[in-house]
């Protein structure tokens, strides 16, 4: 009896022959080139079926015996030996006539118009940089060159040998930690730690635990919950104020900020629609339901924001919040720990800030502490 090897992926897929996908309407999705065929653990990759079941069988996959051309990370289904499963999350392709699942995706070029956006279910190694406007999602991500205004999501860690220029809109989010050389005009958010080897300029940082910037922290806002270390210089000039907020969960704070922006947007829209609706019956019919829908949204968001504030107030622990600066501190910097806020009004060096009693206090760092922090 002859068998046909039915594939649940494209066996002729070639990542070097990518092309934008034309759409129904005749336009082309230039940023979607399907660079990789993702498979998840336990997913059926191929199955032997009787030859008669296929409408147009490819002779290449007709076999006398049901022996899978299985390569690494592929296993027969224990419940149905005629099925081949993926053993790990990764990408599937044919290599030397065998079906293989690889768990590390190497992109040996810049991510940009040549590759399209990349979404991968395991680890990703980018040997170039990431161009502005492109999005990359994977588990652990390593990037060798510059990241420019891109949207990067690592579900675990992110590491860049070079830096990140967010151009005011780009972000890097990580489920665990982020490490990169420098950050400029971008947003970094990590559930655990952020380490910047050089400077951080005009950026927004959210760190669930510690944030360490070895060079300058100049301009922008930092939200953290434990220790913030700035090695060289904290603060810049009056045109780029630097703010540090500590003591509240940075991610809840971020959510609250987002809800507040959304509330502002909805209020403005509601105002516009109300003016239109007031023009007469015809307009009322058109804009009335829209106004009602916006009001419903505002109500939901208001409740959500209230819940977040309650959550944030319930979990207050400021004992671990500390800002340590072995280098120079410039005036104009604002430090907030829990409910208290302090503004630096003079030049200092080698200081630390923490909450004592009900005040933010500034104490000199001991020589050992300063040396130890600088060394890290």
């Amino acid at each position: 009896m002859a068998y046909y090897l039915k594939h649940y992926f494209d066996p002729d897929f070639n990542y070097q022959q990518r092309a934008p996908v034309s759409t129904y309407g005749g336009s082309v999705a230039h940023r979607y080139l399907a660079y990789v065929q993702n498979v998840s653990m336990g997913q059926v990759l191929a199955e032997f079926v009787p030859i008669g079941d296929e409408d147009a069988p490819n002779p290449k996959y007709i076999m006398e015996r049901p022996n899978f051309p299985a390569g690494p990370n592929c296993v027969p289904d224990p419940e149905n030996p005629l099925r081949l499963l993926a053993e790990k999350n990764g990408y599937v392709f044919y290599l030397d006539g065998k079906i293989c699942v690889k768990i590390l995706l190497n992109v040996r070029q810049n991510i940009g118009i040549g590759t399209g956006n990349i979404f991968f279910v395991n680890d990703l190694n980018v040997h170039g940089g990431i161009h502005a406007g492109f999005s990359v999602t994977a588990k652990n991500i390593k990037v060798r060159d510059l990241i420019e205004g891109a949207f990067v999501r690592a579900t675990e860690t992110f590491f860049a040998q070079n830096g990140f220029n967010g151009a005011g809109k780009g972000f890097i989010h990580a489920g665990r930690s982020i490490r990169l050389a420098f950050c400029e005009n971008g947003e970094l958010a990590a559930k655990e730690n952020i380490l910047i080897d050089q400077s951080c300029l005009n950026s927004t940082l959210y760190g669930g635990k510690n944030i360490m910037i070895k060079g300058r922290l100049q301009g922008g806002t930092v939200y953290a919950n434990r220790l913030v270390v700035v090695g060289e210089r904290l603060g810049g000039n009056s045109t780029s104020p630097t703010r540090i907020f500590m003591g509240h969960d940075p991610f809840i704070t971020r959510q609250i900020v987002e809800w507040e922006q959304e509330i502002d947007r909805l209020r403005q829209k509601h105002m516009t629609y109300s003016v239109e609706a007031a023009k007469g019956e015809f307009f009322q019919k058109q804009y009335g339901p829209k106004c009602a829908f916006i009001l419903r949204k505002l109500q939901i968001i208001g409740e959500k924001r209230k819940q977040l504030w309650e959550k944030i107030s319930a979990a207050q622990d400021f004992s671990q919040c500390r800002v340590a600066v072995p280098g120079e501190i410039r005036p104009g910097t604002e430090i907030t720990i829990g409910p208290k806020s302090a503004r630096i009004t003079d030049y200092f060096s080698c200081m630390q800030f923490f909450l004592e009693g009900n005040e933010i206090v500034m104490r000199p760092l001991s020589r050992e502490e300063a040396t130890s922090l600088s060394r890290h």
Partner: protein
Amino acid sequence: MDDISIRDYADTIIIHCTNGFLQLDAIQFMDVCRKLIPQKAIKSIIFDLFDITSCEIFSAGNLLQAVSHFTGLNIRTYLYQIPESCLCILQKTNLIDFFAILESEEDMLLLLPD
């Protein structure tokens, strides 16, 4: 494609899937989605997985493949009404990290365009 019903809003698509969806051939499904989705400036897709049972969730892989195409277009992808059992399997395979889970109908409302 009877197993998929699609509610189409200005820039959000809600795909309600029944059991059959996950048994569909992934390539077939992706093909449909590829044609369907890019014709509009879609920002969000919500997979309403109300009827899905745990035995098919392996096919989260299939779902994910489809989703990977969507996210390739910068589309945010959400799962709604996902059963506890499916949630466990998605967590086990770490696929869960790649989705946003909607907890209530109100969450879904917020995603709809004004």
